């Protein structure tokens, strides 16, 4: 970034990053319990990888570097009556840990709120500074 970073860039970009994390969690939860006919086709949880973006010493925001697929294995279940079952009568359930996803959801929502609070405080301080001497 060529312009110096201000508090709105810092909190705003952190909010975007947390939103990506929240979207990833929503995708994982939506796909929890979905089944596939083979291990390779089964859904696996996705997770964003956060990375610090440094502007100058001490002033830094965060970005999503990439979104990775977790190495959690799909669980095999014997269900011969299922339309997607393979020759052995097995289906694969998505590799998603629902409780971990819920924890992730709460944490990213809290972090998002924190950044909103930072932005609100910074905004009111700036507005008070503008009104100085009036």
């Amino acid at each position: 970034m060529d312009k110096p970073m201000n508090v709105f860039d810092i909190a705003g970009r952190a909010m975007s990053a947390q939103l990506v994390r929240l979207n990833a969690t929503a995708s994982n939860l939506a796909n929890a319990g979905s089944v596939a006919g083979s291990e390779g086709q089964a859904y696996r949880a996705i997770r964003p990888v956060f990375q610090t973006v440094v502007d100058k010493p001490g002033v830094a925001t965060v970005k999503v570097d990439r979104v990775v697929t977790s190495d959690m294995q799909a669980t095999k279940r014997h269900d011969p009556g299922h339309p997607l079952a393979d020759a052995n009568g097995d289906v694969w359930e998505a590799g998603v840990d629902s409780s971990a996803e819920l924890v992730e959801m709460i944490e990213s929502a809290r972090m998002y709120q924190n950044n909103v609070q930072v932005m609100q405080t910074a905004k009111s301080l700036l507005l008070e500074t503008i009104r100085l001497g009036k």
Partner: protein
Amino acid sequence: MSLEDSLFGIHGKALALRSQRLELIASNIANASTPGYKARDIDFDKALAEASRQQGSVSSALESAMGYRIPLQPSSDGNTVEMSTEQTLFAENAVKYRTTLSFLEGRLNTITRALRGE
């Protein structure tokens, strides 16, 4: 002593440092869930003493007074941001920013009245 210093005294530099510290703590809060991020802060007294010296600038004072936060309980991912600490310091800094603003307001009122000759 520059014109700015004689008008605003120490409060001009204090306001600049407070706003820089606001950005610093905002950075810590933004990186609260980045693995390996080390929280930083400034020693405000030291920075203000440095900035109010002869030919002292805000940016060099900020650099010399900066340090890393020592976490109360280190986390396993190497991140040293503790939300409770950061939020307390952020709130404290915001209140002190407002205090400095009201000092400046007082100075401005004094000067304005002197100019008007009331």
